[in-house]
């Protein structure tokens, strides 16, 4: 059942269009990330969902009712949502318990119930022993947990997160990623999560909407975004890739002496002969010292190592196929060492390639 829908949602300041007719539907209990570089409009979108910004066009609907449209915006306080802010916005003049209880008191719950729920949620985020502390006495990670508790304790219809981990150091960020997903698994609150960090989005989300220049480029489950990117931007933004210009001719795709059946990339692919853009992940290319046997449908070409970088977890090689102007990025495990100038063989796997626009 669709719970939250954005239909043609747009925000423009004068001629500058920040969010450009985006459509997105979240099912009840779903966790969706808005992922994109800074300035792509993801935070503006989130703030339109929250009701802090009025759209210039389009609507936000919740449970089938319009809650935002140009000229008429239900104020944030009536939306039954919660939000976690980039600055956490933990009120420094209130204790942890007072911060968490703020929303409950506004809902006019009996005092005993308020106390019970504060205690419960603080246990869930492992902050029970710090209920009486003031925010200034907490670490960044602890403040983050308070923000989480404060947002979840009111049982919101929708939970919004605006780059919640960007102020934490790397280790803590990783820990909080799993914490956020754990809490989602426990409470199943419909969630919109804004981030520019793809690892964060992948670790937490059911689906990811990749945004670029005010538009949504693709919405898919994390592994599909990686294996089947639909646009040049998504292919480059999620992970790293080689973008190759190729020709589609008579059911075959070919570039620089490599050719294979188009059906291997995409079974539904057909149509006229044309140029296509191919995304080939560096780790999908096999690297061999001697010419491999070459399974059916896996083209093999010789090449030369032109550059290499050791990154710890992998070797990062730049290989020039023989007689070609292009250079391919190929990754290999740490023990597979090739010298610059060495002749090698590349083995492609068309099933791991994707055609992008």
């Amino acid at each position: 059942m669709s719970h939250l829908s954005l239909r043609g949602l747009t925000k423009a300041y004068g001629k500058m269009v920040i969010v450009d007719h985006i459509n997105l539907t979240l099912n009840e209990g779903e966790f969706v990330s808005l992922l994109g570089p800074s300035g792509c409009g993801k935070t503006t979108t989130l703030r339109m969902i929250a009701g802090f910004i009025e759209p210039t066009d389009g609507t936000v609907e919740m449970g089938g009712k319009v809650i935002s449209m140009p000229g008429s915006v239900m104020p944030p306080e009536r939306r039954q949502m919660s939000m976690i802010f980039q600055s956490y916005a933990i009120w420094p003049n209130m204790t942890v318990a007072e911060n968490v209880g703020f929303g409950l008191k506004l809902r006019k719950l009996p005092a005993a119930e308020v106390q019970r729920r504060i205690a419960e949620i603080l246990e869930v985020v492992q902050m029970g022993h710090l209920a009486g502390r003031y925010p200034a006495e907490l670490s960044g990670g602890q403040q983050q947990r308070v923000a989480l508790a404060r947002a979840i304790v009111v049982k919101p219809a929708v939970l919004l997160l605006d780059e919640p981990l960007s102020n934490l150091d790397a280790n803590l960020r990783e820990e909080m990623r799993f914490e956020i997903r754990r809490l989602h698994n426990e409470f199943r609150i419909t969630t919109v999560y804004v981030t520019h960090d793809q690892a964060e989005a992948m670790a937490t989300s059911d689906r990811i909407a990749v945004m670029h220049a005010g538009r949504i480029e693709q919405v898919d489950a994390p592994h599909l975004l990686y294996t089947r990117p639909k646009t040049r931007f998504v292919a480059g933004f999620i992970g790293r890739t080689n973008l190759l210009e190729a020709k589609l001719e008579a059911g075959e795709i070919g570039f620089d002496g490599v050719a294979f059946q188009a059906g291997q990339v995409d079974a539904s692919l057909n149509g006229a002969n044309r140029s296509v853009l191919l995304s080939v992940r560096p780790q999908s290319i096999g690297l061999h010292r001697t010419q491999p046997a070459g399974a059916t449908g896996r083209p093999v070409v010789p090449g030369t190592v032109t550059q290499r970088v050791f990154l710890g977890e992998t070797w990062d090689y730049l290989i020039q196929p023989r007689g070609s102007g292009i250079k391919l990025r190929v990754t290999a495990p740490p023990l597979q060492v090739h010298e610059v100038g060495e002749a090698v063989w590349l083995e492609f796997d068309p099933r791991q390639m994707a055609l992008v626009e």
Partner: protein
Amino acid sequence: MPDTAASLPEPVGEARGTDRLGLLGRLRHVEPVALVWLLLIVALLFLVVAPLAKLFAVSFETQGTGEFTLSNYVTAYGRARYVDALVNSLTLGLASAALSVALAVPMAWAVSRTDMPGKGLTWGVVMGAFVMPPYLGAVGWMLLAGPNSGAANRFWRWATGAEGPLFNIFSFEGLALVIALHSFPLVFIFVKAALDLISSEMEDAANILGAGTWTAMRKVSLPLVWPAILGAFVVVFLETIALFGTPALIGIPARINVVTTQLWQFFEYPVRVEVAAAYAMPLLLITVGMIVAQKLLLARKGFVSQTGKGGERRPIKLGPWRWLLFAWCALVGLLSVVMPLGILVQASFAKAWGRGISLDNFTLRNYQHLIFEHEMALTSIWNTIWFSASAATMAVLIALLVAYIVQRRLVPFGDALGFLAMAPFVIPGIVMAIGFYAAYASPPLALYGTAAIIIFAFTARFLPIAYANSAAAVRTVHPEMEEAARILGSGRLHAIVHVTAPLLKKALLGGWLIVFIVATRELSAAIFLVGPRTRTMSVLLYDLSEAGNFEVLAAFGGLLLLITLVLVGIGMKLVGRDFMLRRN
């Protein structure tokens, strides 16, 4: 918490009831901020725009008929005496500003950059000179350096057997010195703040290239704070030409006429407000012009004083020279605070102040007279306190609302509100007072002699202080603090009351106290607007000085000082030691 998980998510509640939001829905969502905005516009028009507009209009009107005329300007500048007053004001402004810079820059450098001893003491001197009402210092110096009976001059004649006085305070130099001894803290604060931002590495870089301490200071440190020195110079200059109390106390007996005292004479019977308005125009134009010019000058980037980062800082080792600097600071402290206050307190407990300190000269009679017998003394104290408290409350309230609306960008053209709130900054107090007199003294409002006109004038005059303070305070509260409250279900007003206001409390209290304190000693705006029953302490002090009873005058000064000290003490306790010296 398994039961919670099972029950989630709950129905969306109210959202279900709100179908496509129609016209009714939209009206319900109109924020009350529009109404507040309208009220603020009205208040600012009343407090700032109308008095100035009226002042301008009146300067072109014939008294009584209101017909257009240029004769006011002819009268105002038709006599050499009036033009001389303008020249005197400008010269006095330059002299006082130059003296202030000379007094304060070595002190600021010493406290900020060197290992001079007694830095705490120097801070105390600056603070003391800053919080002391300016005319109190003037009264002290009248007792110290009057040509015949001044204590310092009598000591000089006794010690040297000379005929003439050492120093006559009733002279142009005397006037400039007394003003500078009160104004130098402004220069100190500006310059020290700028010096504090210069990293020692700046000086190290000069040292490594061969410059000594003295050369490094002259060629690197001082040029870097040049904008601060210039800014302070301009501020002292403008304060001086707008100052009324000290020129009235010292200048009038010395027959030195300046613009402010001349304006006062236009208000002596028969009141010629049209001529006064015309005569005040240059004062207004000079002030506006200089502040605009300064803004333009400082808009150029590239001075360290405008970047925030300090870097490592080490005090410069001065060796024996540090005692010379300390002596300088001590001398300034002696002249600006210790000596004038000492003589003031002595005189206030004396039967005849000229007889010096002795047991048979001691009396409480002066205080007794003021507190139990004088018909106006207690009334004026009460007036001062409640006028100032009302003005401070109004100013902070208006300033806070304007600052909030401007910074949260709640309305289009909000910046116009901010501009109006800051505008009185460029209006000399005395000009503002004449504007209020012209606009509201006569019918239809007929506010002359009422408390209201003084409170309104004080509010307008100190609005910029309150606004700068409030704007800085609002800036420290991240908008997300409020948004976090709103998304959890609190309306804008509820969020302001329960989240923003508690966070701003301390800063607003500080702003309120500063406005209150400066209002309690305000003379120039008050003296044109008081009636027989609405005299303030500052005005009464001026009245007493005209009456010539120095013992009672000193005792009243003592009362004023006591009240100031109590207020400043409260401020330090509540808001922090340096709350009056912070630059907004």
